C-alpha cells in the first residue's frame, strides 16, 4: 500500500468520510467511557461512590458523536447522566473519577458528585440534577451567542423523561421565536426511570415535539456512532447558520437501571439482550472497522485490556486522593467571603 493510499484509509458513511485515525479515536473514546462506567458501577457497589450514580452504558455513541460533531467552543449541558458526556468532551478522567469518589481533586472539588460535573474550560455547563432544569439554562447559553454573535452553538441534552417538562416547551418557544443557535438533543433511552416511553408520552416520536414551535426535528440511530455524527453535523450546521434551533432525537438504550439503585425489573432480559448484543455501538463500530480492513480483532482485544488497565490506574489515583479540605465547605457560595457575615455562637469550625 502506498503512503497516499494509507492516509486515505477509512470508512465513508452516507457521504461523510471518517479517516482511520478518527475511527480509532471514536472507538477508543466509546470503549473508554464503557469501561469507566463499569468501574464506577463497581466502586458504587463497594460503597465508595455515594448518592445517585446514573451510568450511560449503551449510550456511548451519543456521547462521542455529539462531541465529534461539535467545536470545542460550542457549549454543552446535560442532565444528571453526565459522566459519558464530560469524558467525551475531553475532561480529565481522573478528576471525573475523583469527583465520583468525593475527593479533593474532583472536577468540581468534591462538591457536585455524579450528577453535577462542570468543566468551564471545555464549555461544559453541567451535570444538572433536576429533570429538565438544564434546558432553560441551555436557552440562556444560546441567547448569549445570539447576543454576542460569537458563532457558537449550544448543545442542550435531555432525556425522554425530561422532554415532557413544561420548562422544555417554554425554552423551545423562545429559542424558535428568537432563532437561537441551539441543538436540543433528546437521548431517548426508552425509559424515564422505570416508566417506559409509551406510558409517559402521548407522542412517542419525540423529534416531532418541536413541530408546534416550528423547530425541525431529526430522528437518529443513537447506536450507530457514524450515522449519529453525520446527522448531528447537519443539525449543528443548521443552528450555526442562523436558521434557529433544531431538535434531535437519538434512539438509544441504557443497559443498566436508571441509576445504580435501580435493578430495572421493569424490562425483560430479552429486551436488554436484543439491544446489548444486537445493536451495541462499540461492537458495531469494531465490526465495521474489521470489515474495512482497518483493524483486527486482536487489536481491539489488546485495546480493551489497555483501557481497562488505564481505568484501573485512574481509579487508584483518584482513591489515593484525600477528601476535600474542610475549609471548602464555606467556599464558592458567594464571591464575597461569608465567614464574617454569618458568625454564630458555638460555631466549631
Amino acid at each position, binding site marked *: 500500500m502506498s503512503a497516499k493510499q494509507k492516509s486515505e484509509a477509512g470508512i465513508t458513511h452516507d457521504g461523510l468520510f471518517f479517516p482511520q485515525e478518527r475511527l480509532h479515536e471514536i472507538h477508543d473514546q466509546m470503549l473508554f467511557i464503557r469501561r469507566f462506567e463499569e468501574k464506577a458501577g463497581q466502586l458504587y457497589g463497594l460503597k465508595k461512590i455515594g448518592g445517585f450514580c446514573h451510568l450511560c452504558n449503551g449510550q456511548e455513541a451519543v456521547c462521542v458523536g455529539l462531541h465529534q460533531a461539535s467545536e470545542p467552543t460550542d*457549549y454543552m*449541558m446535560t442532565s444528571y447522566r453526565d459522566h459519558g458526556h464530560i469524558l467525551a468532551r475531553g475532561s480529565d478522567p481522573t478528576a471525573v473519577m475523583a469527583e465520583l469518589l468525593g475527593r479533593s481533586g*474532583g*472536577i*468540581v*472539588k*468534591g*462538591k*457536585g458528585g455524579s450528577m*453535577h460535573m*462542570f*468543566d*468551564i474550560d471545555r464549555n461544559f*455547563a*453541567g*451535570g*444538572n*440534577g*433536576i429533570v429538565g*432544569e438544564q*434546558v*432553560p*439554562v*441551555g*436557552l*440562556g*447559553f*444560546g*441567547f*448569549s*451567542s445570539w*447576543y*454576542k454573535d460569537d458563532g457558537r452553538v449550544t448543545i442542550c441534552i435531555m432525556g425522554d423523561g425530561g422532554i415532557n417538562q*413544561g*420548562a422544555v416547551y*417554554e*425554552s423551545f*418557544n*423562545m429559542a424558535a*421565536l428568537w432563532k437561537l443557535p441551539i441543538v436540543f438533543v433528546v437521548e431517548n433511552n426508552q425509559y424515564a426511570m422505570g416508566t417506559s416511553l409509551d406510558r409517559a408520552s402521548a407522542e412517542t416520536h419525540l423529534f416531532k415535539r418541536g413541530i408546534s414551535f416550528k423547530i425541525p426535528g431529526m430522528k437518529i440511530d443513537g447506536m450507530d456512532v457514524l450515522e449519529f455524527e453525520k446527522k448531528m453535523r447537519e443539525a449543528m450546521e443548521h443552528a450555526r447558520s442562523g436558521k434557529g434551533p433544531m431538535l434531535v432525537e437519538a434512539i438509544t438504550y441504557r443497559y443498566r437501571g436508571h441509576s445504580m439503585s435501580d435493578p430495572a425489573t421493569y424490562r425483560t432480559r430479552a429486551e436488554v439482550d436484543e439491544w446489548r448484543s444486537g445493536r451495541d455501538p462499540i461492537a458495531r463500530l469494531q465490526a465495521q472497522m474489521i470489515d474495512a480492513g482497518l483493524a483486527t480483532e486482536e487489536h481491539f482485544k489488546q485495546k480493551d485490556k489497555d483501557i481497562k488497565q488505564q481505568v484501573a490506574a485512574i481509579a487508584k489515583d483518584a482513591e489515593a486522593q484525600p477528601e476535600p479540605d474542610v475549609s471548602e465547605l464555606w*467556599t*464558592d*457560595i*458567594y*464571591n*464575597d467571603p*461569608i465567614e464574617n*457575615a*454569618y458568625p*454564630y*455562637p458555638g460555631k466549631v469550625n
Partner: protein
Amino acid sequence: MSKMTYREALNQAMVEEMKRDDRVFLMGEEVAEYNGAYKVSQGMLEKFGPKRVIDTPITELGFAGLGVGAAMAGLRPIIEFMTWNFAILALDQIVNAAAKMKYMSGGQYDVPMVFRGAGGSAARVGAQHSQSLENWLANVPGLKVVMPSNPADAKGLLKASIRDNDPVVFIENEINYGDVGEVPDKEYIIPLGVADVKRAGSDVTIVAHSRMTGFALQAAEILAGQGIEAEVIDPRTIRPLDENTILASVAKTNRAVVVEEGWRFAGIGAEISARIMERGFDDLDAPVIRVTGKDVPMPYAANLEAMALPSVAEIVQAARVACGKA
C-alpha cells in the same frame, strides 16, 4: 439632590448600568414595548433597542433559566418578574440553578444576574397577588436578597446588585412605586449588606424593611409624641443581613421590635429576633416583639385586608409593650 419616584430611581439605575456595561440586558414580560407593567422600564427600549430590552412570552420558568445560562456564559442579565407572585413558577431556576451553580461547579461558574420585580401586598388583589416571599428566598445560600424602602436606596442598591457577581433577588414594593424622594445627582452605589439607621432614637429599636420602614417611621413619630424615642433600622439587604448595625442599636436601646409584611411563621422577623437573642441577649431588657402580617392568605374585603397587614398602630403598641409602657 433631585426629587423622583421610586420607579424612576429604579429606571435610572438600570439605564446607567446598561450604558456603562453592554453585557447588561433587561428581559421580562412587557418590559419593552409596553414600557413595563409598572412602568419601571419606561423608555428603555427606545434607548437600548430590542436586543437589550426584550419582551418575553409569559413563561417565567423559561426566561428565568435563560438568565441563569446567559449569566454563566458571561452576560449580566436583569430578569424582571412582573411580580414576585409569578416568580414562584420560576423557583426551580432561582433556587436549584442560580443559587447553587457556583457551589456545584466548584467555583467554576458565576451567575452574575438580578431577578427583580414587585413584591409585597398590593391593594385588594386577593391572595395570589399579595404576598411577601422574601423569607423563602433569603433561606437559600447562594442568593442575595435586597429590598429597598425609598427611591434613593432603590437606585443605589439596584446599581450595586447589577454589578454584583452573584445572583441577586431584588424585591421592589408595588405600593412604593409612586413614592417620591430625594435622590443624589452624582453617581453612587449602596453596598449590599449595609443597613441604614433611618431615624435615631434611644428607647427602642424598630427593625423594618421595604414598605414597613415607612410604617415604622410613622410609628416612631407617634411614639415620640408619647415620650418614646424609637430608632428605626432598615436592613435594606435581607441576605447578607447587617446584624452588627441591629445589635449596636439594641445595645443602646435595650429593646427591639421587628416588623415585616410577610407571614409570621418562619419569617424574616423570626430570623432577626433569633439573632438579637443569640448575640445581644445581655443587652435586652425585654423580649423582642414581632409585628407581622397575619398567617392567612390575603383576603379581598377592605376591612379584612387591612387587618391581615401590619399597621402603624400595631407597631406603636408593640414598641410600648417592649418599653413596659403598655
